[in-house]
């Protein structure tokens, strides 16, 4: 039974499950059944994807009679879609497992359960679609399902606003993709093309003219980029992801943004044929700006889930830097370098979906047990939720790209790819690549600072509010999902060779070459290009650290003393220091805001210091405005409102004035006729 049929069967089962969920939502533990079923189907899909990718099977195609009338719906499973099926369904399985425990806290499950399996099915179908129509139908179906999930808590007006911004941006992106497919479908010049042209196979065959190809890439960047969260189009992401229930936010950040990356890779690398060199300029610039802007905004947040959502934007920037480099090398046909860059990008796709979902699970656990999302109301959770704290710590270290975890491996590969760039002949790239390298390094450092803040303020220190004191440990299922992903982060960090070799068929199908085989190298280290150039051995570094730490601890405990005494912490001698004196999220980020805030979001701090002798308390007000929102989106909204108000007057004319409009139209047309040559 071919893997593709298995996957399609799984998706159909998910859709059936979502229908069943409408009924199940009423029964008390209907949620547990739905999430368990989703977890089971997810794991089946995961196995299907892995079987195809690791077994290095040839691509399979299948056509169903449904969909666009003449050509029906085409589905295809090749290495690229198999890899993304693994990424998406790994996240789906874990999120469903997490959902079993987390789902009980849901206030009205009737609004979440029916749409959750539909959302999973939508994502999987996008990966398998092989013609423009079914691609866009599943793409919009995915957006629709996730919109419904974002609107689950619709009584809060912020969520409604987030849902609205999300669905409008999603349909804007979908229309851009529709236009891109329109161009791809029509071979240069001929106007009336048969419907068969919408099939991806046909699109691959008729290579678009260079001019059109550039336009298609731009449209794809807008379409897929808006869903992934590329710089100017990312504004909906930090609004929508936190509004959804936590396991859905994990899926939206972990899996849905990857589906958008899949869309970009499928069109840019597969359907568009040989890239022009200047494409990579655009993609690299966008990737770099997105990376730094994402993490700078993340640093300034004090809502934990918004911080994680903004941080997704940063990681998407890193992925697009990898993809941009791959495009550059492919344009100057340097296949081995392109293979390295693409592997780095795709590995980061996998890594990000793992540790971002882990962090969202942790945040969800903290949110449900305390009812607080604002970090400034939390603190000291490590004592009440030790296991969640430990997994969140693992996630934070991994996402800050610190050895021995997986975040460092993909970042290291991206740096190695950047170091290959001097061989690129074009001047533009010569200047841009070091700049992007510096931006990448800056965003990595900022990420580390951001997650010191996130973990430190939320889990360490003392509880700042009564809610934080009432925290209780997460339930068994959530912890199982979190520990599974934590160990996955460690394995991917320690044995990267396994994952790089697994990506080889995907990379060869897209850039025609692959990285040298990693598993053969002794001591399990990875050598991207050549032995002399650079190598990294995750396992050895990990063992080295563990050995020296335990060696040191044992030596000191045995030779010196191991006595411990508890005493109140020193706070300049004040008795009973109140938790409020601790650093908060805003104060932690204040030095960085002072350094970077000026240009990033025009941050201004207004200090209102009372005159000496005046007993009024001093006030400091930090004014930060989201430049992207103000320079791009508000003018558009203002223009639409202005025009709609002006045009609205036409609705309240008298009958006489309407008749004059009809007369004017008639006279105009008659004039046209009179003047017709």
């Amino acid at each position, binding site marked *: 039974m071919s893997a593709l049929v298995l996957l399609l069967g799984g998706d159909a089962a998910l859709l059936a499950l979502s229908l069943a969920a409408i009924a199940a939502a009423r029964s008390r533990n209907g949620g547990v059944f739905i999430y368990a079923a989703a977890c089971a189907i997810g794991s089946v899909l995961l196995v299907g994807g892995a079987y195809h990718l690791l077994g290095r099977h040839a691509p399979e195609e299948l056509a169903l009679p449904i969909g666009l009338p003449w050509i029906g719906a085409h589905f295809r499973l090749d290495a690229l879609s198999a890899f993304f099926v693994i990424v998406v369904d790994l996240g789906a399985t874990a999120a469903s497992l997490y959902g079993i425990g987390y789902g009980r806290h849901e206030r009205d499950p009737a609004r979440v359960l029916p749409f959750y399996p539909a959302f999973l099915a939508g994502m999987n179908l996008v990966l398998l679609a092989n013609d423009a129509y079914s691609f866009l139908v599943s793409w919009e179906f995915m957006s629709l399902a996730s919109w419904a999930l974002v609107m689950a808590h619709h009584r809060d007006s912020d969520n409604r606003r987030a849902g609205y911004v999300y669905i409008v941006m999603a349909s804007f992106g979908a229309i851009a993709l529709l236009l891109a497919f329109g161009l791809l479908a029509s071979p240069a010049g001929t106007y009336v093309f048969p419907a068969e042209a919408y099939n991806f196979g046909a699109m691959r065959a008729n290579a678009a003219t260079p001019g059109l190809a550039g336009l298609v890439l731009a449209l794809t960047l807008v379409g897929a980029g808006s869903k992934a969260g590329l710089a100017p189009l990312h504004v909906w992401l930090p609004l929508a992801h936190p509004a959804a229930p936590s396991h859905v936010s994990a899926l939206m950040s972990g899996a849905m943004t990857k589906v958008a990356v899949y869309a970009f890779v499928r069109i840019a690398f597969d359907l568009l044929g040989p890239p022009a060199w200047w494409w990579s300029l655009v993609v690299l610039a966008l990737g770099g700006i997105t990376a730094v802007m994402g993490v700078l905004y993340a640093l300034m947040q004090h809502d934990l889930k918004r911080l994680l959502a903004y941080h997704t934007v940063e990681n998407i920037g890193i992925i697009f830097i990898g993809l941009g480099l791959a495009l550059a090398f492919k344009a100057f046909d340097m296949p081995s370098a392109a293979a390295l860059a693409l592997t780095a990008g795709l590995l980061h796709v996998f890594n990000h979906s793992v540790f971002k979902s882990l962090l969202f699970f942790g945040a969800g656990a903290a949110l449900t047990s305390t009812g607080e999302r604002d970090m400034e109301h939390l603190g000291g959770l490590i004592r009440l939720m030790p296991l969640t704290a430990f997994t969140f710590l693992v996630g934070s270290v991994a996402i800050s790209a610190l050895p021995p975890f997986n975040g460092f491996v993909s970042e290291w590969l991206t740096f190695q790819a950047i170091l290959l760039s001097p061989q690129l002949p074009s001047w533009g790239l010569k200047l841009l690549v070091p700049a992007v390298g510096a931006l990448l390094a800056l965003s990595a450092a900022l990420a580390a600072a951001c997650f010191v803040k996130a973990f430190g303020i939320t889990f360490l220190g003392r509880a700042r509010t009564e809610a934080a004191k009432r925290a209780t440990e997460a339930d068994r299922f959530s912890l199982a999902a979190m520990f599974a992903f934590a160990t996955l982060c460690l394995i991917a960090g320690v044995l990267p060779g396994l994952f790089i070799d697994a990506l080889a068929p995907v990379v060869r199908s897209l850039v025609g070459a692959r990285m040298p085989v990693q598993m053969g190298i002794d001591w399990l280290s990875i050598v991207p290009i050549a032995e002399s150039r650079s190598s990294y051995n995750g396992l050895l570094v990990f063992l080295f650290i563990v050995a020296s730490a335990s060696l040191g601890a044992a030596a000191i405990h045995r030779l010196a003393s191991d006595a411990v005494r508890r005493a109140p912490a020193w706070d300049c001698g004040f008795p009973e220091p109140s938790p409020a004196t601790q650093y908060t999220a805003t104060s932690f980020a204040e030095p960085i805001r002072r350094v970077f805030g000026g240009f990033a979001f025009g941050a201004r701090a207004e200090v209102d210091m009372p005159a000496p002798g005046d007993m009024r308390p001093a006030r400091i007000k930090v004014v930060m405005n989201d430049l992207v929102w103000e320079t791009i989106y508000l003018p558009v909204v203002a223009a639409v409102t202005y025009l709609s108000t002006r045009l609205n007057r036409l*609705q309240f004319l008298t*009958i*006489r004035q309407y008749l004059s409009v*009809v007369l004017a139209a008639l*006279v105009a047309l*008659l004039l046209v006729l009179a003047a017709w040559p």
Partner: protein
Amino acid sequence: MTGLSFDVSHLLAGALVLVSFMLLYQTRLYALLNVFALQAVVLSLSVAWQAYVQGAAHLYVTAAIAFAFKAIIIPVALHRIIARLGIHRDVENVVGIGPTMLAGLALVALSVVVMLRVASEADALAREDLAFALSVVLLGMLMMVVRRNAVSMVVGFMSLENGLILAAAGAKGMPLVVEIAVAFSVLVALTVIGVFLFRISERFETVDARALDQFQGDRL
């Protein structure tokens, strides 16, 4: 088509356009009705002449219907309606008389130019007839646009339909069905308008279209 018959139909059609201009000129409501009755008379004469020229009996019937309804019944009915509503005060023009006349002239010129484009081998009378019919239609619409009062707007609509009848009559061999339909619509239009007028006046005590406007449902 002897020269004389062409000249007479040409004369009558021209007269109809002239009367339309007179309609535009009127400010009093009663005067407006009288001129409208005149227009109906000229129309029926023109249709009757067409009937005589084409030797088509049914056109006589149309002429008679036009004369009976539009010349007599409708003006008298509107007279009584205006009397009952007590709105015989003058007709406020939205646009002054001068500009209205200029607009009328421009519309007639436009319809003539448009008709000139029609290749001449079609018989001259049809082309002339259509040009005049088109101008009467456009003048009718102009009248509806410049008048504020609901009754004068209806009269404008009626003169527009007169243009249609002129065109229909000019089209030789057009089956009678159309004529009756036109008449039928005139009749129904009248009843509906009457009913409206009563109901309108019942509701707002004035027939001025402006009074209607502020009742639009979706006001800001």
